[in-house]
């Protein structure tokens, strides 16, 4: 019994001491791998250990509202503006953007590669009711997809069985799409970093409506006095600094740039 207790005490003696802050980010940002480049530099330059809570945009906003994180980095403009208007965040600062792409089976049964616009591509998919996987989790990507369907003239909620709302993160949804050869909307970063591409390929991209703006929102310390507002301010200053600009603009996967820095100095 004593040995068990001793082993137990050794396990317990690992505690961390450093300035930390909690940042809720979207799965698509984390899956891109950019955070693995930025976080060590942030730790080095401003001495803050940023702890990422990787969730969908919907949950990230909830965490911010409850005051469980110090800041959030998400990509859903309308929801972010409501967040600030309702007094949960001090302000919204645009940091960078990447883009969404339409992915589908290489054979492209709906011929979306020939479409001129994103709406046109979705109309082609709807016309032959080709299997489509939707995130269905109220995330930024899901909200984007829903708004794309409505600008194409459809209501995604009224679709039949070919439209599969899986209610999962980007990676899990891509796994599903790869498994059943379906069309899916993904951000480019998650797609490039995804390891199980199967028979899928990027079929449509480049329409300006597919741009995906990331913004940084510190949680309002007046509403939640316990948040680490100093660290949140320092992180914002760093994220909009020339160092961040350089790192974000030069981040590449397979020779492709992913993000474009567009914060106002």
């Amino acid at each position, binding site marked *: 019994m004593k040995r068990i207790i001793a082993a137990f005490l050794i396990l317990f003696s690992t505690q961390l001491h450093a300035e930390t802050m909690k940042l809720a980010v979207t799965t698509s940002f984390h899956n891109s791998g950019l955070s693995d480049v930025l976080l060590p530099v942030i730790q080095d330059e401003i001495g803050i250990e940023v702890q990422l809570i990787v969730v969908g945009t919907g949950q990230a906003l909830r965490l911010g509202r409850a005051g469980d994180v110090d800041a959030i980095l998400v990509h859903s403009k309308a929801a972010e503006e409501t967040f600030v208007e309702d007094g949960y965040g001090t302000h919204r600062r645009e940091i960078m953007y990447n883009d969404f792409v339409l992915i589908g089976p290489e054979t492209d049964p709906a011929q979306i590669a020939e479409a001129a616009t994103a709406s046109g591509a979705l109309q082609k998919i709807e016309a032959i009711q080709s299997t489509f996987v939707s995130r269905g989790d109220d995330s930024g990507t899901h909200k984007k997809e829903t708004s794309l369907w409505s600008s194409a003239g459809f209501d995604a909620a009224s679709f039949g069985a070919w439209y599969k709302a899986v209610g999962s993160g980007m*990676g899990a949804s*891509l*796994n599903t799409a790869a498994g059943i050869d379906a069309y899916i909307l993904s951000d480019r970063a998650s797609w490039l970093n995804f390891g199980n591409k199967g028979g899928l390929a990027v079929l449509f991209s480049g329409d300006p409506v597919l741009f995906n703006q990331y913004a940084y929102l510190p949680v309002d310390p007046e509403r939640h006095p316990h948040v680490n507002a100093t660290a949140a301010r320092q992180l914002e200053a760093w994220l909009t600094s020339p160092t961040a600009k350089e790192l974000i603009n030069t981040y590449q996967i397979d020779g492709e740039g992913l993000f474009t820095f567009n914060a106002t100095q």
Partner: protein
Amino acid sequence: MNDILSGIQAAFWLIVTLDADLIEITLRSLQVSLSALVIASVLALPFGTWLAVRRFRYRRATIATLNALMGLPPVVVGLIVYLLLSRSGPFGVLGLLFTPTAMIIAQVIIITPLIASIAHQAMRELWAEYHDLLISLNTTKRQRIMTLIWDGRRALLTAGLAGFGRAIGEVGAIMIVGGNIDHATRVLTTAIALETGKGDFELALGLGFVLIALALLVNFGIHSLSKTEREGRW
């Protein structure tokens, strides 16, 4: 099939190269689940034994409830613990959300009914055997419970190991209350979920095999430390 083989290979390399991240998350898995096991055992073993010894009015209902709670859905426990520990919740001031402590709390809630229920089953049979003896020796309730716990320690060990098995393999609750933060609350199961999400099945499977090996090791370790299943000590 190929994926599984490369998973075994990945697990092998992770272990022989003593991958620093792997060691860290493995130790954290152990820290969280063993802490949860100890706390849950302290609560559940005496409670299960007490239920076997004691007769009271709502005993049947209590036992039925306990058995039903063995199937508590972890993800619901996670959500409830999250709401309680959230800064906007009743225990928000403690600032426990997204810490290993929050994960331990969730796991204690999940495994306590399981351990208590198995302990009760085992102790009930032992009590049937010991009943007359302990009554005739004019023992107190406390002495009876202590005697049963000591003499039934091997059955209780099984109860504890069942609880440990459920805790170490659990992902739904700790994902919500821990947040899967790298270097803070990432454990084996949440890392596996993350790697699966990235489509990196090889690493996910590698971590999975490490998890299975760890569960085996802990079970063998506890058996040998407590000297059960040995010659002459049946």
